[in-house]
């Protein structure tokens, strides 16, 4: 399971980022946000050539960061589910930051460690996906994600033909 992003459905509202930040400081309601909160940067919203993109860890299956990690605090999750980062053993050496092709690991501002998206294992659906109102973020198996795309493709094709 991973987080996928449908750029065409995104309404640029950035609720996902807010939800991620709120999760990182441990609040679930916007009214509870403390004034001096310092959230972790695990997800961000960027524009790339005019297309919106939700920047986050891609949870690579043979992740360079895991190979680069000197303490073994980055490892692959069970059943190939994501890359797990263990805060306790992380020494913040930054090797992973150098290795990651997506720059998805950032220094944790609160201490000398790095942080990354861990797919919020304590939740059934990651809060960012839950916060997305337009369905632009999807928490899915890559296989199902591709399958849905194919289905959409076939449906579009058929509609196109029927209206020809």
């Amino acid at each position: 399971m991973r987080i996928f992003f449908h750029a065409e459905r995104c309404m640029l509202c950035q609720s996902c980022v807010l939800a991620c930040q709120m999760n990182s400081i441990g609040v679930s309601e916007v009214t509870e946000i403390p004034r001096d909160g310092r959230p972790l940067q695990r997800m961000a919203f960027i524009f790339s050539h005019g297309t919106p993109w939700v920047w986050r860890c891609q949870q690579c299956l043979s992740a360079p960061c895991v190979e680069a990690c000197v303490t073994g605090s980055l490892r692959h999750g069970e059943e190939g589910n994501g890359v797990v980062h263990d805060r306790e053993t992380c020494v913040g050496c930054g090797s992973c930051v150098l290795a990651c092709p997506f720059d998805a690991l950032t220094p944790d501002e609160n201490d000398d460690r790095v942080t990354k998206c861990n797919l919020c294992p304590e939740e059934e659906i990651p809060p960012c996906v839950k916060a997305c109102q337009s369905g632009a973020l999807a928490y899915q198996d890559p296989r199902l994600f591709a399958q849905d795309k194919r289905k959409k493709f076939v449906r579009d094709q058929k509609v196109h033909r029927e209206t020809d």
Partner: protein
Amino acid sequence: MKQTEEEGIKSPACGYGLMGLCCSSCLLGPCRISPFEGKSAKGLCGDNVDLMVAKNLLRLVAGETAGGLKDLSEAVQNLGALAVKQGARKRPGKAVLKGILEKYGFTSRVSVNRFAHYLLRESQKLLSPFSGPESPSPLLSSLYPEGAFPHVYRDSLLPDSLTSLIFDALGQEQNESSAVEAILRKCLKISMVKFISEELRRDIDYLTDGDQSSEMEKEALDVVQDLPPEPLPVVVFLVRDDDLPEEFMSRATKELRQRLKGIARLIPLNNMRGLPSIGRGFFRKWSLPVNGMSALAAVFSQSPASVLGALMCGFSVVSFPALPIHGSEVVERFFCKDLKEKLGSAYVHPRGGEVLPAILEFLGEKA
């Protein structure tokens, strides 16, 4: 006005919206200033968080009120047509009519026609966008007598012209950060407009059509009648918006009544409109303004204007859903702290969107 109404009433769905940061005022799209970016954060338009929240609130309140004003001006037109033709189509009930006449400072011997002419003239004056600050208007001072609503006069929150206030609010841009408070005061003024226009319209409708909705005022007065002779220290009013489903309200009432048993008296009200009448009734009964008695109104309403209106009637207010103001510290402080110092009653912020803890907190402070 219609457009503002449509845009203004939408309830926020995302986190930014709940915080009051969901700005849609420029066509470049939402800036989504993060609450974590602190004071330095500025949107595309150059506004900081506080201004943005305040302006958004103003837009919401004004948009909503604009709709109500439109109804009032229609009602006034009807009244004009009718006043010339002498009297209502349907004769109004005597008891209610008496109540209405008294409210405006008339004795019951005055002819309905004369009263109608008075109402027409004064409300036209209030509605005119060109009417100057010749305040206080005699109509308003009879509806909101100084004894019952002293805070309105002390802080000059009583509006003079209804329409120009709205135009003013929707048209002008104020960029200095010191203007936040001015904007918020305007919010309060406008939400009063909403209450005034609704009440006026109701009374006019009653005169012209014999509309039964004025009976609701009686309900509010009955509530006051039922209160014990000594002013209670703490009363919680549970106020419901018309749009909310019955089921939801009855569930909330039941739950709150259970939890507040032995702590405070709980009085459910079926609509917002009775609140000014209750203010007047309190004064008549105990010669005390509401904000002198620290009564709390728990308002269940989608509309911020109603919430602020309740505040202007002298109640301390807790609302569900909460006002979209968590995004700005300044705005929150204004409503929750500054107002208390000035008016004696204030907004009680339901942390986490939960009403009950907020009520308990309020009660605990008072007890």
